[in-house]
């Protein structure tokens, strides 16, 4: 019961934040609501007993990427951004695409209920005691099964960092 309530609580915050984020005129308000949406997602991770994902979501997404977003927003001239007309001429296209996507997702949910095996798989929840400690599990798989992708990702990040530094240096 507690699980359910927590899930709906976090999910509600996530959805509301997402809606508010795309409807605010003020860019900083949008950023704040994106932060709350990400925090709510982290809460859902926590509720699913994936504590490592919870904290990594907070450290990386909220503490890293959102800080970067907020920095850029504040360094850019906000008045100019506020005066730009939003939702220009793509309103209708966006609406149609959104409706199509919503329809697809709805069909997915409907079929998973009606036709088992099609649509979304409905998994039985694992008992909490059987779950291995999250960080160790992720670490083990990263350094054994997924070692090559991990190293490739690190090299990619290194290249991106070096590229960013080189480009920033060239300007001055």
């Amino acid at each position: 019961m507690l699980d359910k309530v927590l899930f709906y609580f976090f999910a509600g915050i996530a959805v509301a934040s997402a809606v508010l984020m795309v409807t605010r005129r003020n860019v900083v308000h949008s950023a704040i609501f994106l932060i709350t949406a990400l925090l709510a997602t982290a809460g859902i991770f926590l509720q699913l007993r994936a504590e490592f994902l919870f904290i990594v979501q907070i450290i990386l997404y909220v503490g890293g990427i959102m800080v970067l977003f907020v920095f850029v927003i504040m360094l850019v001239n906000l008045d100019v951004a506020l005066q730009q007309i939003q939702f220009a001429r793509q309103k209708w296209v966006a609406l149609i695409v959104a409706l199509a996507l919503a329809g697809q997702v709805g069909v997915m949910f409907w079929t998973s209920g009606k036709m088992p095996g099609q649509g979304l798989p409905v998994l039985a929840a694992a008992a909490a005691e059987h779950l291995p400690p999250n960080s160790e599990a992720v670490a083990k798989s990263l350094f054994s099964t997924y070692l090559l992708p991990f190293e490739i990702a690190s090299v990619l990040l290194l290249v991106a960092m070096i590229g960013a530094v080189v480009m920033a240096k060239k300007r001055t």
Partner: protein
Amino acid sequence: MMNAALQATLEFLKLYWAPLLCGVAVVAILPLVVGYIVLVERKIMADMQARLGPMRVGPHGLLQPIADAVKLLIKEDIIPENADKLVFWLAPVLSVGAGLLSLAGLAIGPAFQIAQDINIGILFVVGISALGIFGIVLGGWASNSHYSLMGALRSSAQLVSYETAAGMALVSALLFTGTLNIKSIVEAQSKEGIWFVLLAPVAFFTYLVASIAETNRAPFDLPEAESELVAGYMTEFSGFRWSLYFLAEYTNMIVVASVATTLFLGGWLRPFSGVPWLNFLDFVPPLLLSAIGAYCVLRMPKQPTRVQQLFMLAMAGLCFVVALVLAAPVVLPVIKPSLRAAVAPFYAGIHGGFWFIFKVSLYIYFFMWLRFTIPRYRFDQLMRLGWHFLIPLSIINVLLVGVALIAGAYFHLQGWGLLLVTTPAAVVALVAAFLILAVEKERDARQEQTAASDFYAG
């Protein structure tokens, strides 16, 4: 749905009433504690500056925090004209919230931890305290002042830069534990019998410097110093809002000190906790407090007024009571050996709490000492120190500690034996540090030469 919510709440309360109670207690008591930490800082500052500090409000200035709190609460709440009211309200709340939440993950002694047994303990504390950055940035932006914004961005740039170095330093120590759980970290130090500060001294030093920058303390406090063009992101906040920021800063100090104590200084372990013949050290806490109480009693007749005499007596009484509480778990088993098992959890909890608070206080005292002794870094010097020195040093240190550990496992070294491999690693790291500093100085000198010639072009 209301029924479901009610049922869920009851279930939650039944499971977690103890941590909730502890949490409420901490949030209620923390402002008072922080207020007295500020008083202690002012007294220490005064002592180092050959003066007395607050003396008027209450005996020896002991009611000063109360006076300050009352003043801050009744001050007029000024909001700048075009400020964004929602964000202006939210920013200090974010800072304080992040600080308090990260406090929840810490274990003060083996018995007191609000969020019990989190698998990701240290990561939780570090990650949540990083959320405080938003409080600063949004506060600076909401002030609707260009200079506040610049100060806020600068402050948060500083925080973000030193987070990496701090994290790497923590990783160096975590290599010895293999787990992120706070209690397990201290237990690992107990098992090894040696505190990680001795095994990874360079990591401790790196974390020390990075934590000073993380909490915006001197010498890294340029963003909030008044000799800068503005007073930084806190300029437009007055009264209660400002006190929230202040509370957040000192809470961050406590968090950072607690993390360092847990990881490096043995947490709640007594010095040489594993060595049985040094068990007489257990008597040090009660003896120390009794000595302080006796000192208060001795100084009582020398106080000028009756109120101060009574106050000294009260202080002495308090010290003796605490000394009694500390002595009980140690003295009782000596008198009646059968009580040893029954008293053990009390011993662990009370003495553990004492040693933890003692070490945290030492760490914070060092922060204060630094603040009053050395001037502050300019912002570009600060950033250069973080990026050019601390981050390379901490990364190199992680590598070296890892190699040392592998060597230690190969030779089956344990406990104090690990020093055989970690000391060479620390020496190599120190050599690397000096090399980096030398390269930096040379680059500085070269830049000075090239830059000096265009200064007189105008």
